């Protein structure tokens, strides 16, 4: 685990892979994220759309993935956090 | 005499509104105008093309132009078929730096960094109007005041607030012609 990763990990029970090139910038994920850890980028992707970026605090709840119309997210839940962290199973 | 303009770009650049403005301005001046739009069912980013024909008598031109006198090239993507129909010698306005002047046939080519010009007059969305202003300054097809009036007429009520910015963009596009330099360059090939 790199240092940056550790920093990112802090307070996060899960994380994402964001296929940002597929994003069409609808922002549905932003409102859908319960802890509010997604923010729209200031850059645009190839199609000219802004896309979400992940800040710390992801719970791995999959809400973003559920609502995203463009299949942008994979969601991971850390297994090393211990059972207690995994409340949303 | 009939003057044909083809405009080519991608969705979201204001291609259709630009073309409509020119055609309406000519109509309001009592001339004959025709506008053909050609946009797929596609969303933003898809091809957007239009052609305008203006004349003083009922028009002979077909809705699919066999050839065209002039062009506004707002984006290089999808522009090839339109450019292939240009008659050599006529004027072409290019949106720099997106469009490569080498892509055109032997036209009288003017480049304008429409995004920069638009930003400079605080009308960042009005790229299309910058290009139209420049085009009309070169071709003098209609009175610049007619363009402003037509633009205003075309704005739906809920977009009226953009009128001033659009007018600035039209003027800035035209003005760019008076200031040789980076903003408007006649490129001869």
């Amino acid at each position, binding site marked *: 685990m790199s240092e940056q990763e550790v920093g990112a990990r802090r307070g996060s029970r899960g994380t994402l892979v964001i296929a940002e090139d597929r994003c069409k910038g609808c922002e549905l994920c932003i409102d859908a994220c319960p802890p509010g850890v997604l923010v729209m980028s200031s850059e645009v992707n190839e199609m000219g759309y802004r896309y979400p970026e992940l*800040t710390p605090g992801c719970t791995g709840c999959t809400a973003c993935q559920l609502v995203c119309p463009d299949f942008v997210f994979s969601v991971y839940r850390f297994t090393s956090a211990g059972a207690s962290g995994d409340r949303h199973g | 005499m009939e003057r044909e303009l083809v405009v080519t770009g991608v969705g979201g650049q204001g291609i259709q509104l630009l073309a409509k403005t020119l055609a309406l301005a000519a109509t309001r001046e009592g001339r004959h105008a025709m506008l053909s739009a050609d946009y797929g069912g596609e969303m933003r980013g898809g091809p957007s093309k239009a052609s305008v024909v203006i004349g003083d008598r009922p028009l002979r031109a077909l809705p699919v132009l066999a050839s065209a006198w002039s062009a506004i090239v707002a984006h290089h993507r999808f522009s090839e078929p339109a450019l292939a129909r240009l008659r050599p010698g006529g004027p072409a306005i290019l949106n720099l730096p997106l469009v490569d002047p080498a892509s055109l046939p032997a036209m009288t080519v003017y480049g304008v960094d429409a995004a920069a010009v638009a930003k400079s007059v605080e009308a960042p969305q009005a790229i299309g109007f910058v290009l139209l202003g420049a085009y009309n300054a070169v071709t003098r097809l209609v009175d610049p005041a007619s363009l402003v009036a037509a633009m205003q007429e075309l704005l739906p009520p809920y977009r009226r607030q953009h009128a001033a910015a659009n007018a600035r963009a039209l003027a800035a596009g035209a003005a760019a012609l008076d200031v040789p330099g980076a903003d408007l360059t006649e490129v001869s090939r």
Partner: protein
Amino acid sequence: MTVIDTSQPPSEPARRVADFRPSLLLGEHSLCPGCGEPVALRVLLEVLQELDIVQRTIGVVGHGCYGSFVRIMDVDVLQCLHGRAPACATGIKRVRPDCAVFTMQGDGDMANEGLQEVLHAAARGEKITCVLLNNGVFGDTGGQLTAATVLGQRTKTSLEGRDAETHGYPIPVADLVAGLRGAAYVARGAVSTAGGVAQTKRMLRRAFETQLAGAGFSLVEILTMCPTGWFVPAPEGPGYLGDSMEQAYPLGELTTWRH
């Protein structure tokens, strides 16, 4: 603001709990930003996979924006005429009773052009699953009034908003279908919230289970966002859906069948 690197899966121990998209998707769709229809497609395909019926499923797809899904769903598909999917599905099911047969239709397709088809199929107790993607407009033709457009909604053919006196009242398709004895499972979900998506998926699952058990007709009406047709910015789609459509079309199961 710390931005986490999300270009790669995490290197530390983690379990993938949700994937980009089901493997049954063959490519990208070209629907508008914020459209609800692709979400419905995803959960539908996931259900087929989870029920392990992919290789005996036949879809019948109507005309609407979702029509283009025919190109990206890795399922045997008949692209049928506008409104006629339940009839086509009937023919397919009757000659291939072992297949799972579903339709995918919009509100224009099902509540307008083909209201008769779905009601007759339901009354017949046809063992098919119909999926209604209800966004209250003809999305594909640019946003005109459908028979499911809610009161007050502005569309290209009801510029002042749908007015009952002129345009009549919206038709609650699921409720109508639920009034027929042949319908064994009828439910209405929405893809405007994460919870709604999960619930919709469960409904789809039950609908297919109903079909596989031979219990009768099943319908899942799914409320989907159409920001383009509604003339609202994409991020406001879910809120708009909740404030307008959900009021006219309450979510939940209307008819359930138990083993």
